[in-house]
C-alpha cells in the first residue's frame, strides 16, 4: 500500500474535540477501505495567510495514512461534501515521520508567543486588505507589529467601529 499525508483545514467553529472526532471519522472511512492511519496530529487553530470563504482562522490537522488509492478516493469524496472542511490536500510521501512535525504547536510557549512566532508579519497586510468587506478583522491581536504602513488602515477600522 502507499503512504500519504492528508492535511485538512476545518472551520473555526469546530472545537478541538470536534477536530478529534473528524479525524476519527475519516480514519474509520479509511479503515473500512483496507487502509490504516498509524498517526495523526493536530496543528491547532491557526490564522490563515489569506481568507478562505471569509474565514480568517481555521483548525488544521494531518492524517498519516497507509492505504490503497481507492480508500483515498473515498475519503476525498467525503471531504468534498463536508461543510466543516474548508480545504484539504493529500500528498504522497516516501515515509512517515514518527515524531510530530514542525507545525504542531509547542505546549509551553503556545499562549504568549502565538502572535509573534511565525505569522504576525504576514497576516497584517491581509487583515488590512480585507477590511473593506468584513470589518471584524482580528486587527487588535496584531498590535505588536511595528510596520507603520499597514497598521494605519487597521487603526482606522477600530476608530470606525467605536464611532
Amino acid at each position, binding site marked *: 500500500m502507499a503512504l500519504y499525508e492528508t492535511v485538512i483545514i476545518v472551520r473555526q467553529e469546530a472545537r478541538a474535540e470536534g477536530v478529534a472526532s473528524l479525524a476519527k471519522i475519516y480514519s474509520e472511512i479509511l479503515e473500512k477501505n483496507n487502509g490504516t492511519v498509524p498517526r495523526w496530529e493536530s496543528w491547532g487553530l491557526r490564522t490563515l495567510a*489569506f481568507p478562505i470563504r471569509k474565514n480568517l482562522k481555521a483548525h488544521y490537522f494531518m492524517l498519516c495514512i497507509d492505504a490503497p488509492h481507492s480508500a483515498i478516493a473515498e475519503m476525498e469524496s467525503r471531504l468534498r461534501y463536508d461543510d466543516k472542511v474548508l*480545504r484539504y*490536500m493529500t*500528498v504522497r510521501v516516501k515515509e512517515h515521520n514518527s515524531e510530530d*512535525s514542525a*507545525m504542531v504547536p509547542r505546549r509551553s510557549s503556545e499562549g504568549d508567543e502565538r502572535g509573534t512566532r*511565525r505569522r504576525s508579519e*504576514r497576516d497584517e*497586510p491581509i487583515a488590512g486588505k480585507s477590511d473593506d468587506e468584513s470589518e471584524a478583522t482580528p486587527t487588535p491581536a496584531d498590535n505588536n507589529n511595528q510596520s507603520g504602513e499597514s497598521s494605519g488602515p487597521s487603526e482606522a477600522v477600530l476608530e470606525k467601529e467605536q464611532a
Partner: protein
Amino acid sequence: MSFQVISRTQRRTSRWHKTCPFSKPGSPQPDYKDLRLLQRYISDQGKIIPSRISSVSPKKQRELAAAIKRARFLALLPYVNR
C-alpha cells in the same frame, strides 16, 4: 591594471562561493510543513526567491518551489503580501 584572462567558469566559481543549502547529506529538505525553512526562500512580497540569489541547486529549487506552492494552497504562506 593587469589584463588577466579569466575564463567564464573561473569568474563564476569565484562569485558563487556559496553552495546549495539542501544538497549536503543531513541537511534539511524542502517540506511544505517546515514554515520557518520556507520563509527564508520567499521575498517580502511572498514571491519565491530565485535560485541565482539563494544558490539553491536546480533540483532542490524545484522541490522547494513545489513545497512553497503546497504551503500556499493550505494558506500557510501567502500568495501575495501587499
